[in-house]
């Protein structure tokens, strides 16, 4: 185990939206919403995630990979060729932006694990997770920053409008969007450090700092996750993957495990609820996210917003027609939805769970 990692810390603003009717929404909205909160970041990181953007390749895992230098590309492609059917490879379209002088090589691959590589009882998803862990921890200078189906993350070092322009975010259309502007307090200048953090179709944007990071990381390592990104948000992504995908918890149950009610409240509950909450907390104590946070996590079927147990970071939600918005500030929602039907501030630890209609 490597104990000598340096943890990266940052403050930020976040925003997200979902159309439950799967209406395609252009990227311009999310960019506008995020840019309103420019002062929550410091221009050293921004990013976007969108769902429904690759309908033509929706059965393929879309790997977005950044290469610090082109030479490692060959190593990674060799690995992909040996393990995946590679349907399509292309550089992620980018547009020159004055403020962004240096960027890694950004390539996307639409892939499907080779059947013969799925030996034993390994599930396809687990195979993909293992590949992501392997490349991110073992191939210096290569980093898979997006690996879900029909979704993708776009992120880098820059302010929200520059990163949006760079990736031509306005050219994408999706039914779920999340976005993040970052205020890192040390400046690694590493593109991988920006949010969203993704794994499979989980994407996380996060405001705050996870003070329990150290134990969350060690807990995840016990289950084979390799934490390579030097930032606390990564643990949230992997915890959701572990609790929901691997352990089969529902989203509300997983939210209860990650931001558990206080014992005082649990003790007051009626027997069945108390037993469930007690068991969740006893079992997932090391997964408890402690410290200030508000988080949006997107996934293939919906969008969830949650904040910490004592509400140390802001989160506002609003609804208009089939769209639910969630953001650090109400004004970020009003920027793109001036007259919502309902606006509310979710209570501490109470998740806002929105699912796509079938």
């Amino acid at each position, binding site marked *: 185990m490597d104990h000598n990692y340096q943890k990266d810390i940052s403050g930020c603003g976040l925003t997200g939206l979902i159309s439950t009717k799967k209406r395609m929404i252009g990227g311009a909205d999310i960019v506008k919403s995020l840019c309103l909160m420019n002062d929550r970041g410091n221009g050293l990181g921004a990013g976007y995630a969108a769902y429904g953007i690759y309908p033509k390749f929706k059965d393929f895992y879309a790997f977005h990979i950044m290469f610090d230098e082109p030479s490692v590309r060959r190593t990674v492609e060799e690995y992909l060729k040996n393990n995946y059917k590679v349907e399509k490879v292309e550089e992620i379209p980018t547009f020159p932006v004055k403020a962004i002088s240096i960027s890694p090589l950004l390539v996307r691959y639409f892939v499907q694990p080779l059947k013969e590589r799925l030996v034993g009882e390994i599930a396809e998803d687990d195979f993909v997770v293992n590949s992501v862990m392997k490349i991110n921890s073992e191939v210096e200078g290569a980093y898979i920053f997006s690996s879900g189906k029909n979704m993708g993350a776009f992120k880098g070092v820059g302010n929200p409008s520059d990163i949006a322009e760079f990736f031509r975010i306005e050219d994408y259309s999706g039914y779920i969007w999340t976005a993040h502007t970052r205020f890192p307090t040390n400046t690694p200048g590493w593109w991988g450090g920006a949010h969203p953090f993704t794994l499979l179709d989980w994407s996380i944007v996060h405001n705050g700092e996870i003070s329990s990071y*150290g134990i969350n990381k060690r807990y995840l390592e016990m289950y084979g996750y390799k934490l390579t990104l030097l930032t606390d948000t990564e643990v949230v992504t992997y915890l959701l993957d572990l609790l929901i995908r691997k352990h089969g918890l529902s989203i509300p149950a997983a939210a209860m*495990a990650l931001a558990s009610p206080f014992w005082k409240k649990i003790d007051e509950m009626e027997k069945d609820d108390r037993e469930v909450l007690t068991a969740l907390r006893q*079992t997932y104590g090391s997964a408890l996210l402690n410290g200030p946070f508000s988080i949006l996590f997107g996934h293939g079927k919906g969008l969830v917003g949650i904040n910490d147990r004592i509400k140390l970071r802001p989160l506002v939600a609003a609804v208009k027609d089939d769209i639910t918005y969630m953001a650090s500030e109400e004004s970020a929602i009003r920027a793109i939805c001036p007259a919502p039907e309902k606006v509310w501030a979710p209570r501490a630890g109470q998740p806002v769970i929105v699912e796509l209609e079938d």
Partner: protein
Amino acid sequence: MFKSLAPPEYLATIDREKCIRCKRCIQNCGWGVYSWGGDKIVINTSKCVKCLRCYHYCPEEAIEIVDNPTKFKNNAYWGFHNIRNIKRQAETGGIPLTGMGSDLPYTILFDNLLIDACQVTNPSIDPLREPMELRTYLGKKPSSVELEKGKDGKPRLKDRMPPQIKIEVPIIFSPMSFGSISLNAQKVLAHAARECGILMNTGEGGLHEDLLPYKDNIIVQVASGRFGVNPEYLNAGVAVEIKIGQGAKPGIGGHLPGEKIPLEVARTRMIPVGTDALSPAPQHDIYSIEDLRQLIYAIKEATNYKPVSVKIAAVHNVAAIASGIVRAGADIVYLDGFRGGTGAAPSIIRDHLGIPIEYAIAAVDDRLRQEGIRNEASIIAAGGIRSSADAAKALALGADSVAIATAALITMGCTTCGKCYTGNCSWGITTQRPELTARLDPEIYADRLVNLIHAWTHELKEILGALGINAVESLRGNRERLRGVGLDTQTLDILGVKPAGR
């Protein structure tokens, strides 16, 4: 008689002008230092252990106990204890005994670890006004929770959780047997454990019926001497502990001297009065790990599956041993470090065998995680926890709870004089002499021990608050919030801790 060539360690002195000849010092000293010479107090200073009972009870503050200035020549290599032990051995041919944990100046890792605090990027939390949770559950946890829909559509547990022991603070009392300590001292522990929602541990001397009212806060112990072990005993507490070893004397058994075996102790242990109570070095039904498994499950069968704890001394290969214990079915692994206390141990063993608890916690926690079985058992760490800071560091290294004994005894008057094995404890703690044990009023001293646990609880909450976390789960194993000062790279690596400044 030949006068010992080992000079006394302490000089008991009386200011004759202040002394009013009230003889309280004579009454209070359990060691026979003072006697009445007809017109004044006579002092036999060679018997003095500096327990300070006389000083405390002298109404005129006439007594002063000083370190004997007539010592052997200072020598950086031949320490006082070396020379003194050789002289005693030359006189007796015996093994010098000692009590308490080792007092030799080995590096204390706790003192080379510092705890983090929040500034700006994450807020500290106010522990006095806002919730701060220290509650801990000891016992085996499943790796995941399975839920199913109940009739009302709400989620229900699919399987029952394995049995859990709830403690309100992750600080419990280490095992100390009736025999090694007095019944009153055990009552203090039991009373305070109940008051604080934590646990005391019978040690291996059986369970006196006076402790039955406290059974919900008691772990009963089964050790190599099998004193007082019967089905009722096994089922009396909330868990059963198998004692393999003790930090102060790894690998060896124990002799509770006959002086400490009066009728009550003898009755509870089911042995003759006044003989030495023998605890064999090994448990003779455990010569290998599969034998341990057999005993664990024999106890589980006999108790309808109460949690079983296995206590071992922290020795070189502690990680592999602990892993074996967990795989053998233990619900709790109790690690007792090098600095752990004892009522009686050969000083050569106490001072030279085993490893400090800090390494043991780190190694065991790491190993159980590497093997993916950390959830299978809770880790209790003991052996020299002196303060809530030590406790916090032990938790951050990976322990679920700490256990304290010496600190608890200090609240009862103990000054760590280290003469527990004589049975003369003037504070009534490690003695069975009725005139001495009567001094330890369980109610009064329980309040003092409760105060200590409350004070440490407050301090732990302050530490958590400074760390910006409001549940002890987030401290447990969170080595990211520790930094080493003046530790070498390899030690840091073993502890899984970064150096300060990184």
